[in-house]
């Protein structure tokens, strides 16, 4: 009897053939998973390290306070970060209300009808449209159509047409709106998810004591949805900050030696001598003695650039153009919203791209420095969004 029992017990505990091998495969998969994860995370580390080693030593206060220049040692990102700031401000002012309203409409108000499904399909598809196509649309609508009112809107009064031509075209307003349209799906989807997660009882309670639909939404749904909405807005804004392709399409400049608050047209852009219709000097051999009134850059007829400083007296060849750098005093004196909205611009990613595409190693260094600034800002914004989402999930338990 005892022998038979022992036999049975060994049968029960006997391992099926190949189990050790299967268990080994199971365990070793964990290693593969960890290796794949490390490759992903290692990329982030490599990115930051590479940019820091290449350009970290260029991150001085002067780098943030200097305009770009033909001389890489003196070049900086002043016009780029000011441009990015103004473009992002415009983007936020357009994208946040529209995205928030659209999200609330789709969750709280939208009836079930074909138009609502069309809106939902549009939102879902927009998220997958390549950003450069937003750029093409912006070229067609904001730059060519609205930016050239004298070509299309001949029936409108002259002053109105001038206003439109000032604001649209290759301007900060165009850039801001384009990026706003690009991040709209992100804000809408985040708003919808946040609004949807507010329990139905909150609405019923408010409605039961006589609140109207909007009062309910405004006072009882949105406050609880807000952290989720803000998370979406931060992620959207950080995406807009790093976008390059659509802004290249609408003509973001690569060399901007003025702050967007003053424009080249405001006596900061001068040509020397009499020029023909192609911008070449009528008398190419001649020079003219000029007293420089502002710090800035002179572009010579052979397109080389020369830094100049206020007070210098120079003999410049005909065909040179002078770009004066506006001082803060000039900027303050001429400031108005329509002024900077209609201004030409550059942004951080375009500045970095321009320096990356130059062959000299010194430019690659400042490209890395600009990239590091950009990378750190976007990563911090995303980290903030993740932290907010994490807190939200922890704190609110319905």
């Amino acid at each position, binding site marked *: 009897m005892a022998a038979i029992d022992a036999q049975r017990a060994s049968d029960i505990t006997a391992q099926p053939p190949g189990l050790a091998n299967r268990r080994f495969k199971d365990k070793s998969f964990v290693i593969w998973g960890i290796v794949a994860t490390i490759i992903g995370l290692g990329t982030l580390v490599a*990115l930051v390290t590479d940019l820091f080693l290449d350009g970290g030593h260029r991150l001085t206060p002067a780098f943030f306070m200097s305009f770009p220049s033909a001389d890489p040692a003196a070049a900086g990102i002043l016009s780029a970060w000011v441009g990015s700031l103004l473009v992002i401000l415009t983007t936020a002012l357009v994208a946040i209300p529209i995205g928030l309203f659209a999200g609330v409409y789709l969750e709280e108000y939208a009836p079930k009808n074909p138009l609502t499904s069309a809106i939902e399909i549009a939102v879902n598809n927009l998220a997958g449209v*390549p950003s450069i196509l937003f750029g093409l649309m912006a070229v067609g609508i904001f730059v060519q159509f609205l930016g050239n009112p004298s070509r299309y809107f001949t029936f409108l009064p002259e002053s109105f047409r001038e206003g439109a031509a000032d604001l649209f075209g290759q301007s900060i307003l165009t850039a801001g709106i384009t990026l706003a349209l690009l991040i709209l799906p992100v804000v809408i989807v985040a708003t919808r998810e946040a609004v949807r997660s507010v329990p139905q009882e909150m609405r019923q309670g408010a409605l039961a004591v006589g609140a109207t639909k909007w009062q309910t939404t405004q006072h009882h749904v949105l406050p609880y949805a807000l952290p989720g909405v803000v998370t979406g807005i931060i992620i959207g804004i950080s995406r807009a900050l790093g976008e390059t392709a659509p802004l290249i399409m609408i003509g973001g400049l690569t060399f901007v030696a003025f702050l967007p608050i003053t424009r080249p047209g405001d006596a900061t852009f001068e040509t020397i001598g009499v020029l023909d219709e192609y911008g070449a000097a009528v008398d190419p051999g001649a020079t003219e003695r000029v007293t420089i009134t502002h710090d800035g850059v002179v572009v010579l007829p052979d397109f080389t650039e020369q830094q100049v400083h206020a007070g210098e007296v120079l003999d410049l060849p005909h065909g040179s153009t002078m770009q004066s750098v506006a001082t803060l005093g000039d900027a303050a004196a001429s400031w108005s919203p329509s002024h900077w909205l209609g201004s030409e611009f550059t942004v951080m990613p375009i500045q970095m791209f321009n320096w990356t*595409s130059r062959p000299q190693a010194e430019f690659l260094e400042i490209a890395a420095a600009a990239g590091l600034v950009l990378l750190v800002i976007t990563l911090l914004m995303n980290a903030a969004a993740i932290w907010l989402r994490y807190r939200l999930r922890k704190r609110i338990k319905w």
Partner: protein
Amino acid sequence: MRLRAGVIVERDFSKRKMRWGESIIEGLLFLAAVAAVAIVVGIVYVVLSESTKFFAQVSAIEFLTSTTWTPLFDNPQYGIAPLLTGTFMSTLVALSVAVPLGLLVAIYLSEFASARTRETIKPTLELLAAVPTVVYGYFALLFVTPLLQRLIPGLPGFNLLSAGLVMGLMIIPYIASLSEDAMRAVPRAMREGSFAMGATRLETAFRVVVPAAISGVVGAIILGMSRAIGETMIVVVAAGTQPQMVISPTQQGATVTSFIAQVALGDVAFGTLEYNSIFAAGLALLVLTLLFNFVAFYLQRRFREAY
């Protein structure tokens, strides 16, 4: 409602006060939502109308069959094929990096890792998708390419291989994160059934969880793919700008997107054939993206397992 000698007078609901504020707000909310449709219509309209001007001068047959794309030459030729081969080659390289790595990460996080590990790694990995693409371009050109040149002698400074590899790293989080969501949505009972039959976690992952989540996984891969097709800056910076029929990833080549960006960087006069050619290329891009969206939608419906 008014109290009159302790009696509640019935409210006359037929004379309900019209609330104008409510209607105005609802109208504003509706307008905001319609903006999404307007953007789609705007993109399609601009791309179509400008392409129409292009196809008035260049035959669609030449556009689709010619193997030369030289719009900037004296004797311009407009065959989209070289740009498409560039796009497909870089996308192929990107997917061959991102699909295996992304799925390994997804299976590891969903089936093997602890909840704590998952909650830490997933958002950190998603940061990869937040890096500005121009920074990735710099990384591809000045870090990955020199590295590859040591392994592959004779690799040109601009090549689709390094652009594609970096693009692959960029789309890992799209594939990993969405696949992981799909795998975690597979009911626990299915896993427990598999464990009860004696299967290991790995066998359960590959024979039960992945097949059950296949619609989400395929959707994630196609989303990553359409990201790769539409990516511009990495290829503009690192892959070169010379359109040619690409047969090997070690070649340099222009993609649909990098051609559009390259023309925009130069000075193109409005209304010229060259100006219109970027919209024709944009049309090709739009059609490709919509096609993949449609395929993803179809596959998800076809292979959906409902629980």
